[in-house]
């Protein structure tokens, strides 16, 4: 892409390189200025749109909520309220209803699908100890086949009340969520797959299974923290 230096004539070479330098530097400064202007001008709107899109997803997986708050999972295993994700620690979104009552948590999870990584958000209700729904944030699954995971009614029904009940000591999930074949569901912790989208639907089951076995016990044992936040921030009506 750079011009071949041998093309330049040998005479006036210092004069020429000065001209080259001036041209490159001034174009560089001009371009940088333009970019910074546009970045600053659009930043606010882009941030707002992104938050709105994410909130919409959180509202979908936690039916009945009217408020949501982001929490970060620190390395010490504790959840703390946060303004923005820091790109390192896992993020969850707590949902509260009109009265400021804590209803559940939306958790981001991802894993390998059929074509590429699938990123999902799923809702966990610690009161009934079930998963309430999931929403695909990002997927490149085959259109018409793998993307049935977003549309197939029977598959989505799996996530109306998927059991993630903890064992009596509340340290781990009693029965990990596992994917099974279509028509093979006999326990409340099984995810029934879709014929024709076997790998994609199994991937969803596995993503939720792996992620929930880590996150659910943590969240369940810290319900107090999420409730406390509501008491401090939402006035009871």
């Amino acid at each position, binding site marked *: *892409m750079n011009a071949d230096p041998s093309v330049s004539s040998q005479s006036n070479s210092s004069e020429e390189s000065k001209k080259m330098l001036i041209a490159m530097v001034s174009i560089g400064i001009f371009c940088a200025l333009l970019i910074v202007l546009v970045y600053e001008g659009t930043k606010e709107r882009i941030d707002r749109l992104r938050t709105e899109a994410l909130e919409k997803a959180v509202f979908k997986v936690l039916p009945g909520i009217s408020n949501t708050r982001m929490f970060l999972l620190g390395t010490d295993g504790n959840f703390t309220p946060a303004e923005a994700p820091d790109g390192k620690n896992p993020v969850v979104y707590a949902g509260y209803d009109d009265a400021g009552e804590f209803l559940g948590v939306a958790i981001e999870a991802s894993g390998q699908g059929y074509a*590429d990584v699938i990123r999902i958000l799923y809702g966990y209700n610690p009161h009934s100890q079930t998963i309430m729904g999931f929403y695909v944030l990002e997927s490149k699954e085959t259109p018409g086949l793998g993307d049935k995971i977003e549309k197939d009614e029977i598959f989505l029904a799996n996530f109306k009340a998927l059991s993630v009940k903890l064992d009596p000591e509340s340290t781990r999930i009693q029965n990990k969520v596992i994917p099974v074949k279509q028509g093979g569901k006999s326990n409340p912790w099984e995810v029934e797959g879709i014929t024709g989208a076997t*790998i994609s639907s199994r991937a969803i089951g596995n993503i939720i299974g792996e992620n929930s076995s880590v996150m659910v016990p943590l969240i369940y044992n810290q319900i107090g923290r999420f409730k406390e936040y509501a008491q401090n921030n939402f006035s009871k009506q």
Partner: protein
Amino acid sequence: MNTESYWSIFINASLVNNFVLAYFLGICPFLGVSGKMETATKMGGAVTFVMLISSICAYGIHALLVAIDAPFLQLISYIVVIASTVQLVEMFIKKMSPTLFRALGIFLPLITTNCAILGLALFQTNKAYSLSQSLVYALGAGIGFTLALILMAGIREQLEFAEVPDVVKGTALTLLVAGILSLTFMGFSGLGT
């Protein structure tokens, strides 16, 4: 932070999400130099090489841009730094190993601004790979590119003797073959899980 295994990254980059056949990246050299087996192999080697270099560059630039909080300079700095680094490496090879330069040299300037190279840099940043993951990704993508190029060259060498209607000759025929190859590669889907 990304916990994908090296094996999964490699298989996904080379076969499942082949840069040419699934992402349409690097179509220009794909159509241009896939006529002969020998050129295709050399081109593939050169691309893999540049991909590895630019992968390191992109990782460094991204870390720097995050540190100074200037994400808006990402695209500009990627393209400028990658292009100049490749230029430097080209000069270095010319001096150190004239044989290697003769084999890869003429392709190097041609592929600096190749979509596949910039695409690799952007994708690895999006996926938040670590340095070693990025290198595996670059190697996979490069090998996948080479594979697609060699397969195409082999088919096109055979096609030279085939009788083809006038209207289909040229780019259209190459694209049709590429489409069929792309379908074949879909069979690899699901391998990377």
